[in-house]
């Protein structure tokens, strides 16, 4: 396994990651997809969820939401509105966000509020999942 893939994750606020990896799994809008080096050029919208990459036999998790992935044979670029490495996720905050979102879902009258609360709920759950997976894999 000499060939590697450059994974770059950027958000509006900063560059989260730029690293050579062996494999990338990402939550595409139409379901998860995996990328190995020399993948064909590919452009996809991403859903809310966990992105993971393998490097030297270890699996690392990154939470992403509202993003796009651009895949070329040598490189994967992720543009996300929010992205956090599993180690940087604040589970306490995510849990609070989940509670808030659930309360709002129970009360929400308008459609927009409902959609927003639902998205926020999904994000908080995905964040916690990501942290859990990271802890299980021992990479955070």
């Amino acid at each position, binding site marked *: 396994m000499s060939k590697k893939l450059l994974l770059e994750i950027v958000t*509006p606020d900063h560059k989260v990651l730029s690293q050579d990896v062996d494999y990338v799994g990402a939550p595409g809008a139409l379901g998860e997809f995996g990328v190995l080096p020399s993948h064909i050029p590919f*452009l996809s*919208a991403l859903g809310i969820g966990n992105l993971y990459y393998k490097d030297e036999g270890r699996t690392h998790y990154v939470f992403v939401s509202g993003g*796009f992935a651009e895949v070329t044979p040598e490189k994967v670029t992720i543009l996300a509105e*929010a992205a956090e490495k599993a180690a940087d996720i604040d589970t306490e905050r995510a849990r609070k966000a989940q509670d808030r979102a659930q309360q709002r879902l129970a009360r929400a009258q308008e459609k927009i509020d409902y959609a927003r609360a639902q998205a926020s709920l999904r994000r908080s759950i995905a964040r916690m999942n990501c942290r859990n997976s990271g802890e299980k894999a021992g990479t955070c």
Partner: protein
Amino acid sequence: MASLRDVKTKIGAVKKTKQITKAMNMVASAKLRNAQGRIERFKPYAQKFDEMLGDLAAGADESVHPLLAKREEKKTVGIVIVTSDRGLCGSFNANIIKAALKFATEKKAEGLDVKFYCVGKKGRDAVSKSGFEIVVQYRDIMSRFDFSVASKLGNELINAFLDGTVDEVVLCYGEFISVGRQAPVTQVVLPISGTESAEETSSTGKDYVYEPSVEGLLAELLPRFVKVQVYRGMLDTSASEHAARMTAMDNATRACDDLISSLTLLYNKTRQAAITRDLMDIVGATEALK
């Protein structure tokens, strides 16, 4: 002539003012560095985003997505004005406000309704004084904002555009050119017109596999493009604000120096005059005693 003590108090006052302006200058330069850093960090995202959109939009025309569609009959124009929350930054805010209001007045003369979306207190104050309608206002956020603010505002703009409340959206902000130069910019955000970068990067020659589809991706990318633009405007305004304040405070400090030196001169002259007068008195008195 001013009394000696008056001049002394005045010098003291100017010195204190100078201390303040100097401190503000330093604070502004620290904040400017911060703001510039944010622009730098935003750049890779913006660049990549433009590239992706360029690739996608190359083959797309107006009919693909409602956000691209230009309206034949325009009734309402939305103006997003991004200014700072605080003053004391020279003519920076005034310039943006002037540009925005001029634009608004022109549109009004054409018989269009004008709606304002205000980010930053200064712009809001000026717009509400001028009597134009303010739909949304964000205040006291320029000192600490992130993408979510731009995202929220972007959503409001998109919704207003899609349901026909506004037929065009224009963004007014202070473009950050350099530390010494900031310029007010008026830019059409909606409908999205062919991105400039589209022409440059459209021929990257890669045949992408698109998922879900070109249209589906555009539907995701285009709303985000609006937000990216709003965010860029906010970042630029914030950097410009600090740069403008730095220059303004630098000038103020220098003006204080000038004032202090001329006041010191006056002080010395007055003191000398008083001494001369006293001496004359004494000499006069001794002459009289002889």
